[in-house]
C-alpha cells in the first residue's frame, strides 16, 4: 500500500501510522450533549466501499492526513492534510 503525502510525495505505508476514522476531526463543542460525544467517540460506520480515515506520516514530515479510500477495491481516492492551514499554504 502506498499513500501520496501532500508534502513528501508517494510513500510506502510503512512510513505511516494508522489512527482511526476521520470522524475524529469533527470534535463536538465542549457543551455538546452526551449523545454527540458518544457518537464522536464510540460510534463508527464500517462501510464496504468508500471510507475516510486518519493516518500520520510518522516516518516523514509529521503531517496528519485524511485518506479517502475504498475498502473493497483498496483504491486510494484522496490524501489530504487534515489542517486547513495547510490547504492555504499549498494554494499560495
Amino acid at each position, binding site marked *: 500500500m502506498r499513500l501520496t503525502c501532500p*508534502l*513528501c*510525495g508517494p*510513500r*510506502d505505508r*510503512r*512510513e505511516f501510522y494508522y489512527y482511526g476514522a476521520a470522524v475524529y476531526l469533527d470534535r463536538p463543542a465542549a457543551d455538546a450533549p452526551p449523545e454527540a460525544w458518544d457518537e464522536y467517540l464510540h460510534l463508527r460506520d464500517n462501510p464496504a466501499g468508500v471510507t475516510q480515515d486518519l493516518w500520520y506520516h510518522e*516516518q*516523514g*514530515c*509529521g*503531517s496528519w492526513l485524511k485518506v479517502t479510500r475504498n475498502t473493497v477495491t483498496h483504491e486510494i481516492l484522496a490524501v489530504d492534510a487534515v489542517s486547513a*492551514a*495547510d490547504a492555504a*499554504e499549498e494554494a499560495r
Partner: protein
Amino acid sequence: MPDLIAKPALGAVAVTHAGCTLAEAAALTITALAPFPGQAAAVGAELGLAFPAPNTVSEGGAARLVWAGRDLAFLIGGAAPERLAALNGLAAVTDQSDAWVTLTLTGPPTVEVLARLVPLDLRGTARGQVFRTGLGHMPLVLIAEGADSFTLMTFRSMARTAWHEIEEAMVKVAARSF
C-alpha cells in the same frame, strides 16, 4: 572553553566497502526553525535564504536551510546569533545540534546500499533534494549531496544502530560484486 568534555555521537572511523564509504560528519550547528503560520517567507528573508519548499534545500554561503518536515527546516552551519534573534516572533527557534548524528555515505554503490534501508527511489537524486523518511525503523533526514553522495541524519541515541545497519548493508552489497 567549557570544562566539560564534549563527545561526538560515535567517534567512529570511516569504513569503506566496495567503493562505498561511511563516515561520521563533523558536528555542525543545527537550528530548527519552525515558522509561525504565514511567516515562512519572512523567516527566509531574514536569513537571506529562501525558506525551503518540501523536500528541498536552500543554500547560501556556509549555511543551508534544509526542509525537515511540516512547517520545519533545519538551519545547518553557521548563522549569526543576531540573525537568529531577528526571528523572534516569526518562528520557533530550537537548538538541535546535539539531537542528531550526521553520517555521510559516498561512492558508486551508495544508492544500492541505501536501497537496503530506505524505501525511496534515490536514483537520479541531485543536490538540493532532501527526504524525511526512515532508515529501517529509525527516523531519517536524507540530504542528497550529488551523484552517489548523501548526508544522513538520525537520532543521536540511535547512532550505533544506524552505523551498524548501514555497514551491514554495505558489506552485503560488496559481497555480491566479485
